[in-house]
């Protein structure tokens, strides 16, 4: 690890200011992704701006038709939340499948969403539920937020403060874990709303994406059988030492079935 300065601001605007005024500075939330890259000397920011002292970034609130999860809320808290379990059980289940207990205790929803790892779980939940990313500057719809491989709509100095999830009628997540990393080799989130179904896929390509044919079929009939015959094109899907693109495509169908199954059970 290379040396760096460390700041622990008390207000969101101060954090945003530090971030824009110090070139090569970086936010640190749970540190589960950032610290390993520092240790391997893959990143060497001159300063870290720690979000842990900012007020109101932790915790889950019930807004009636939506649930807001503070950016600094760890995965374990979401997984164990009675509120999330009651209103969006598929999201609580998703959080419980991330990494291991240590990672779930430190890693945060804001960090995960900001990082937009192509195999991370939360992006599937955020896109699948059509959530809104609330930042220090504005609100961004999930459909506009994820821009592919570690890219998001966040501007320099912009800080995620919360994610706001609309409460669906039903939602489920099915994850096929990559054997070694246990990130998603393929993860599918399916959510049924009064006005239709959303299906989001993580792990399979360079970033999270929706599957319109599955959404259409499930909007007609929200049942695993509705997607069983829908095949995904291998174009744009990842091929690596763990899985070839056609296998990933196949898993999208299988996981979509299982996600719907989970939503129904």
């Amino acid at each position, binding site marked *: *690890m*290379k*040396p760096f300065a460390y700041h622990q601001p008390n207000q969101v605007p101060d954090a945003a200011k530090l971030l824009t005024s110090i070139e090569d500075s970086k936010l640190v939330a749970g540190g589960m992704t950032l610290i390993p890259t520092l240790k*391997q*000397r893959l990143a060497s920011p001159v300063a870290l701006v720690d979000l842990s002292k900012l007020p109101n970034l932790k915790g889950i609130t019930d807004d009636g038709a939506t649930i807001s999860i503070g950016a600094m809320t760890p995965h374990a808290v979401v997984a164990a939340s009675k509120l999330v379990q009651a209103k969006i059980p598929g999201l609580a289940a998703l959080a419980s499948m991330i990494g291991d207990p240590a990672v779930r205790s430190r890693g945060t929803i804001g960090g995960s969403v900001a990082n937009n790892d192509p195999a991370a779980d939360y992006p599937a939940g955020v896109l699948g539920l059509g959530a809104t990313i609330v930042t220090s500057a504005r609100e961004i719809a999930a459909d506009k937020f994820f821009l592919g491989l570690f890219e998001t709509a966040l501007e320099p100095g912009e800080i995620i403060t919360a994610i706001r999830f609309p409460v669906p009628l039903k939602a489920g997540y099915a994850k*096929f874990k990559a*054997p*070694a*990393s246990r990130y998603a080799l393929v993860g599918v989130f399916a959510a049924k709303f009064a006005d239709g179904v959303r299906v989001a896929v993580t792990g399979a390509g360079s970033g999270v994406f929706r599957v319109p044919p599955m959404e259409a079929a499930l909007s007609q009939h929200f049942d695993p*059988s509705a997607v*069983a*015959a829908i095949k995904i094109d291998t174009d744009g899907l990842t091929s*690596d*030492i*763990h*899985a*070839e693109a056609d*296998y990933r495509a*196949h*898993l999208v*169908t*299988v996981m979509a*079935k299982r996600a719907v199954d989970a939503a129904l059970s």
Partner: protein
Amino acid sequence: MGNVIGIGASPKRKEDQRFLTGRGNYVSDIKRPGMAAGVFVRSPHGHAKLRGIDKSAALAAPGVIAVLTGDDVADDGLGSLPCGWGITDAKGVPMKEPPFPMLAQDKVRFVGDMVAFVIAETSDQANAAAELLTVDYEVLPSVVGVLEAVRPGAPQLFDDVPNNICCDWELGDKAAVETAFRKAAHVAKLSLVNNRLIGNPMEPRAAIAEYEPGTDRFTLWTTSQFPHVVRFLMGALVLNIPQHKLRVVAPDVGGGFGVKQFHYGEEAVITWAAKRVMRPIKWVASRSEGYVSDRHGRDHVTEAELALDETGKFLAFRVKTLANMGGYLSTFGPNIPTNLYGPLLGGVYTTPAIYCNVKVVFTNTVPVDAYRGAGRPEATFVLERIVDVAASEMGLDRVEIRRRNMIPKEGYPYQTPVLVQYDSGDPVGCLDGALVAADVKNFGIRKSESARKGKFRGLGYSTYVEACGLAPSRFAGRLGARGGLYESATVRVHPTGQVTVMIGTHNHGQGHETTFAQIVSEKLGVSFENVDIVFGDTDRVQFGMGTYGSRSLVVGGAALSKATDKVVAKGKKIAAHLLEAAEVDIQFEAGKFSVAGTDRTKTFEEIAGAAYVPHNYPLEVLEPGLEEQAYYDPVNFTYPGGCHIAEVEVDPETGTVTLVNYTAVDDVGTVINPMIVEGQLHGGIVQGVGQALFENAVYDEGSGQLLSGSLMDYCMPRADHMPMMKVATHSTLCTHTPMGVKGCGEVGTIGSPAAVINAVVDALSHLGVTHVDMPATPNRIWRLLQNASLPVAAE
């Protein structure tokens, strides 16, 4: 008499007290006054010419003390890293043995090959300076697979090693095998790959070196399984340091599995550098560094053929293997796929003729050497797989075909056609025991239950034997060993009767401090608590070959047993004097020397006291003191074996294989500590399951990049991959080791891969699947099912 805890008991492990309370003493825990930090700069290319290294920017960086390269090594006239085995081809021509410089000279031959050593005040400074080193590479195409490496036109690693073939080795009677094949009613054929593995001990490698000008002595602390061998290889053959001027210490070591049983270039470089800069230096590998520098294991491509008569009796077995050596010859490298492989191809069967040809091949990959099991898992996998193939092709039951060919218990000793002679065993007994323990008779019910859930269930057998207890020196010498393979132990009885044992094996997780103390407690009748085992320090332990090849109890324990016998023999002389009786009338039992047929006794403590306060003592005929040493050179290998039965469930939708039951009944000879044996079996089985289902070191052909270079991409087996295992022993006693022990350290890893893969193939056999290469990943299984063109996608 105190608290004797002897052979057959399962006390808690002595060493766990310090390990579990964070009081272990590992190399990276050690600090020396004035210690600097060292970092190795490694090649990012699989194959490249080294055109030059510009040190200036690195040398100018803050805190930098020195930057050393291959040119400095050459200037100091240092030797190349030695290979401990010299094998020969069929015509007796020695293997090609190109030099293995401790820092690369002229060329780099694998990603991770060391090009420089940067020494600075702190490891951060050393790392920063390492990034400033300018190395001018002329990148060459890499070749990483054995099939590609022997092809005409393949990149050549060494100018004087045509086709990258180090040695074209063979064993067995080729003509007899050919004759038998001509008479065969059936010939089964199988091509397979034995996947490349990375050991991943929990503690990464590390070293500290220090030079004391006052005494002209070097000390190297290193994460090694065999400190005396490092002292010899490095001192005598690389750095020209006289043995008495070099101390090698391997303190607590966090797992080895073979990865730490080699003499590594890092050890030589850091020791040499410590004198050059006159500072103690420490180096601790990162996990990523371990991936590209710890010696890898396995990596074979094999074609096998088994000839059978019409009843399924094996007539002959022919095996052709290409074995990957990586970029250079490591300490045991060429011995593993040859001498530890070919002689095991007989298995537990009476196959009369066997021929094995192994081409040992250089590639642009990390050098390959021993990894838990070393050669024997590869042999077992080939044999146990082809037996299943033959059974299926001939319509014979897989258990029945094994039974028909097994060496009966009365058939021992059994001379195989491939050098080794098994002294004892009972494969049929192990098989029968395992069939019951695995509840094979109700497998059909379980299979139907799985089918109802849409899953395919399969059962797999592996009835195997291995050779361990390395090794009879004379025999090993004929096979090409350049050193001895005996072991030594000193039993020092203190004046108060407590005992310190100095032994040349090395404990790095196996529980030696417990097992060896039990042997002493039993044999001398002293309290278990009153025995300490010292190992891992060439200044404290007389000599030793270290721990690998399941040799510690078999060879080291035998030396210990002999040394305790000598203590008892001397004690009897002292007792005879004190009790005024003839030596022949003295009996020793349960810690007491007594005159036969009387109640006159002396305790072990009294005898120890008399030996060190020799006022009333036969000084004219007996030296004072009570300390005895023994060296033991085994007369044969030992041959543990057994039967493993795996049961798997395959999810045809995703291709996921789940191991649902695992049973092992092993013959490990006398069991000293059942709990420790069970633990060794558990760990070994899990590593074998890892090879069968998860682990795979993958290189990119052409660039030579290691694609599975971290735990994110290299899948280690985890607790939730495993069912509760049923392990039991069904032991016959080894006829030539003092306590009848055979060793148990590697059996799990040797028996299990074939059992698991045979189960996977069984689960898919109704679809025409006849073989699955390891690891049986979901993607690979799904692909097989696709090719079997099954409608698996949906109900």
